[in-house]
């Protein structure tokens, strides 16, 4: 089945999921979220792909939340189902065995910010505008942001971002730790490609194991985490002697 809201390209063991909703913003509609789930499942099974890059390049936006024109009429059960759908996409991205790089090419708001936070690494173009504007429209996020943002930038910056609902630029996002790198506009895409390709040269079982362990570290006490690491390392590192 063809995609309507995105396209997939594969170059040098990197799979690119490029959101392209045909409008200025890539809204995370129910259709877009379902297509993203399908795209991640497709690249998970593609043996030619070691690393996945998610982006809205070359458009102006990475992604924004749902269509407010539709959401304004949501009943509480509608909202619950919508949150479940979004959360199931993020679970899929996190449990995906391949590293996922969020290439934040521009406007990244609300659900788009949550989508970015489900990626393993976030790299921003210097034109980044990132916000979590729920409090401006009378809601909180339902896409895991209230748990993830405080763990990425600390509770205090997270509360500021939620409370002000204001957009933050690339330098501010880098200072808070919301993005890991910032690339200049002129060489943003070539640098994204070369970074992703460098990672993709590494053996996939090792990349997957590292991703699983680091994700597990967040919810595990140190002793259990170390036990997991030992078991995993025993298996993975013995493959390379």
């Amino acid at each position, binding site marked *: 089945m063809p995609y309507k809201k995105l396209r997939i390209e594969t170059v040098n063991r990197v799979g690119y999921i490029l959101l392209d909703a045909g409008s200025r913003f890539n809204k995370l509609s129910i259709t877009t979220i379902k297509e993203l789930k399908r795209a991640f499942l497709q690249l998970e099974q593609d043996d030619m792909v070691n690393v996945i890059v998610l982006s809205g390049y070359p458009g102006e936006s990475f992604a924004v939340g749902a269509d407010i024109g539709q959401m304004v009429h949501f009943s*509480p059960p509608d909202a619950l189902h919508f949150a*479940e759908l979004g959360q199931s996409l993020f679970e899929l991205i996190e449990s995906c065995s391949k590293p996922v790089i969020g290439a934040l090419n521009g406007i990244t708001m609300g659900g788009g910010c949550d989508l970015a936070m489900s990626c393993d690494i976030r790299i921003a173009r210097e034109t980044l505008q990132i916000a979590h504007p729920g*409090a401006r429209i009378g809601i*909180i996020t339902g896409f895991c942001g209230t748990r993830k943002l405080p763990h990425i930038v600390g*509770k205090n*910056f997270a509360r500021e971002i939620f409370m002000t609902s204001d957009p933050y630029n690339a330098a501010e996002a880098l200072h808070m730790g919301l993005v890991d790198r910032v690339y200049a506009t002129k060489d943003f895409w070539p640098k994204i490609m070369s970074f992703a390709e460098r990672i993709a040269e590494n053996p996939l079982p090792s990349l997957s194991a590292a991703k699983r362990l680091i994700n597990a570290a967040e*919810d595990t006490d140190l002793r259990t985490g170390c036990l997991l690491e030992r078991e995993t390392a025993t298996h993975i590192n013995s493959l390379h002697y």
Partner: protein
Amino acid sequence: MPEKLCSSKPGTEGIAVLTVTGNSGGSAKELLHALQLHIAALSGKPDVKGILLSGGHDRFCRCRLTGSKSPQEAATLSGFGQSVMTNLEKTGRPCIAVVEGECSGLGFEIALAADFIVASESSTFGFPDIASGLIPFCGGSQRLSRLVGKSKTKELIYSGELLNAEEAHRIGLINRLYPTGDATVQAEKLLTHICTRSPHAIRIGGEVVNAGYDIDLHTACLLERDAFALCFAGFDQREGMQAFLDKRQPQFEGN
């Protein structure tokens, strides 16, 4: 008298200024009792939309810690202090701590219980009371290590040294850094701006952030999902989204 250690006054546009001055002779216990009363009073006032937590002019809370007579006394004081800080977190209103000078010891613990800290270039932060053998007792060690990491927290508590404003900003202890003398005005502006947002979303969002932080991702996301759905049973969601579509300012009711 409690009034001298702590005071609160209604400011403009629903911003209440809660000033924790303390004084060099006041005990931590007296200060905490006074603070508790003011927090309860502000929490009971529906017209209070936001709380600006201030230390007055130079030092953020001048109360010196003194050793307790017995371990039981120390335990009681610590338990009480921790509950006061929890109440400060649970007012349901946005609360910004503004620091213009030295913010140390108990004052630092109080500032850490705010939603976030903004400060001027002349501010400093630390726990110098280690020299008298005292460690934080109002949740400060736990809040600080969650905010800036374990190593930085140990460095500060072991050494008793004060951190300067620039370093505090660099490590994310303070969210915003302003020129000396400008922090209070800027903090009030920021809080007024925050108070134009949905009070319901801010209250629920703050609660979910706090409740979700120390539990596993899966359970926290379930909690968030339900809180998100609940927003769609209230007024603020419809008003906020309709105002966005109409390109006008929303008039929130806070439910």
